[in-house]
């Protein structure tokens, strides 16, 4: 089974398999996703595991309690490629440790910050789901359709479950890319688990088209 609730299916997982964390307020709402950062680890529901993730900030030496998981799985070559990629971007994201919210973004799932005069790329901002999706893109695995027209609309109530307190700060909303009063078409963490909940052939054939309600897994 490609993606699963660890309460029902405790499993042996591999490096850079995707882990999800359920919300404490909303049943089955996936509020965060991360990449497992250890090899061949048996993971039960609620286990604390080593991860690399956009917390924020990006942490390559962090841990979390895992509730759900999804995997392709990745080959050794792909794992080595992602490892090298993380090294090339690690400096950009560790820099923002003192400004936790500064490197985070909700919409789009990632955004390049460039010099206005030269166009040279300085760093990339991510959501937690965006980081996981980009990591897979580095090995030519396109998990999810992220074009706006392809995403379901999400009301404020759903986003508040994912980002408590953000809607009380218009400056923060603006920085995170949420304009207007909604609903919004954004990538939520649960979509990544649904994208993984397909056969390997299906995953490689085409990216997943998220549906309303996929924030739950």
């Amino acid at each position, binding site marked *: 089974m490609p993606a699963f609730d660890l309460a029902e299916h405790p499993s042996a997982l591999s490096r850079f398999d995707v882990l999800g964390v359920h919300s404490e307020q909303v049943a089955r709402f996936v509020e965060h996703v991360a990449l497992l950062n250890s090899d061949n680890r048996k993971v039960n529901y609620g286990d604390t595991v080593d991860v690399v993730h956009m917390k924020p900030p990006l942490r390559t030496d962090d841990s979390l309690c895992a509730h759900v998981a999804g995997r392709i799985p990745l080959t050794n070559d792909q794992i080595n490629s992602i490892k*090298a990629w993380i090294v*090339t971007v690690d400096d950009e994201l560790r820099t923002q440790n003192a400004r936790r919210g*500064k490197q985070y973004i909700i919409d789009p799932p990632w955004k390049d910050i460039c010099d206005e005069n030269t166009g*040279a790329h300085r760093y990339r901002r991510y959501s937690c789901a965006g980081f996981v999706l980009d990591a897979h893109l580095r090995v030519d695995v396109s998990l999810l359709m992220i074009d706006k027209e392809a995403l379901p609309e999400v009301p404020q109530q759903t986003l508040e479950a994912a980002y408590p307190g953000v809607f009380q700060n218009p400056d923060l909303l603006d920085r995170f890319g949420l304009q207007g009063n909604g609903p919004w078409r954004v990538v939520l963490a649960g979509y990544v688990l649904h994208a993984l909940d397909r056969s390997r052939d299906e995953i490689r054939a085409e990216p997943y088209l998220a549906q309303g309600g996929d924030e739950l897994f």
Partner: protein
Amino acid sequence: MPNPVKEHGLDSSLGELFDSPQETNLWTRQTCWTKDLAQDQKAFRINKGRIVETYYGLRKGTDEDAQSDAGREIPQMLDKASWDAFQALCRRHASVWGIAEASLETGPFPDAEPQSCEAARDDQPGILDEITGEWTSDRLADELLRLDIENDWPRLRELILTAEDFDFTPDKSAQLAPRLLEVATQYRESNDSQDAPVVWSAIRTGASMLRPNEASRLLALFEPGHPIETSLVALKMLGRIFEAQPPERPDQHTDLAGEVRGIAESLLNPYAIASSQSAAMAQLAVCTLAAMASNETLHIVRAVRRMGVSWFSQQIARELRELQRSWNARSVSVAPEILDLLDRAVNELQAI
């Protein structure tokens, strides 16, 4: 007036209360937040430029009317979200509220015992735009250029991190770029763990401002014998300079390309590539050579093939294809011989 509360002076419960996600919905107001911690304690969180600062207020005295006035007026004044308004508030209600600074997220606290909120900070008045409460890019640039690299390092360190999110005029960028790279060169050997991310930020921001004919300013950061992370960031940014501003013709920057080729050749062996850091450095070197349209590119790409490390070859091919896509998407045309060179490099790897 209570003593200022330094970051390490806060007990964990208070720190958690400020930042607990469960408590975030108790913060009120928009750009300047207040939260009642207890009957006689308030927290204030205010946007000050690009920094959010937290202040801890302790009620003192027993004048009920004065306290009532302060309780009503404080939120109103804080709505203006300006540093000057907040200072005025502290002076006005100093008999009622002792406002102290709880620097949870900002730099070191001033050493002097503060007599008022104004004295509690050594920031210069007038830097902030009073309407928006934010830095302007010109003011930020001037401050970055004014501060002494050694004597003002804590403050400079903060502003360098702030600058990475700003756009500056071409004139200011021309002054800032060498300044930021000078800072990076001076602090790359620092033992303070807080300095390394700032060094990298200075490289990224400073390098992103460079034109291709200025790219040699990064050479000093490639010197061996210094932290490899610094060289890795400099190498990455060299590639990004040319990705954004393609060369006009092949081999336009032979000296610089020669340095990059040396890095690539030193790392293109299966033993070095086994380390993720060395693999990343080698990958950046190969891709930077391609972005510089160096005629050494094909030679280096063939060396990649000869290594026989399939994942690495595929990774390089993927990055070179990404460079192709980036250049093809540009509104300004790239010289055909440069595109042809890149095309040949990709084909060399795809033939594996």
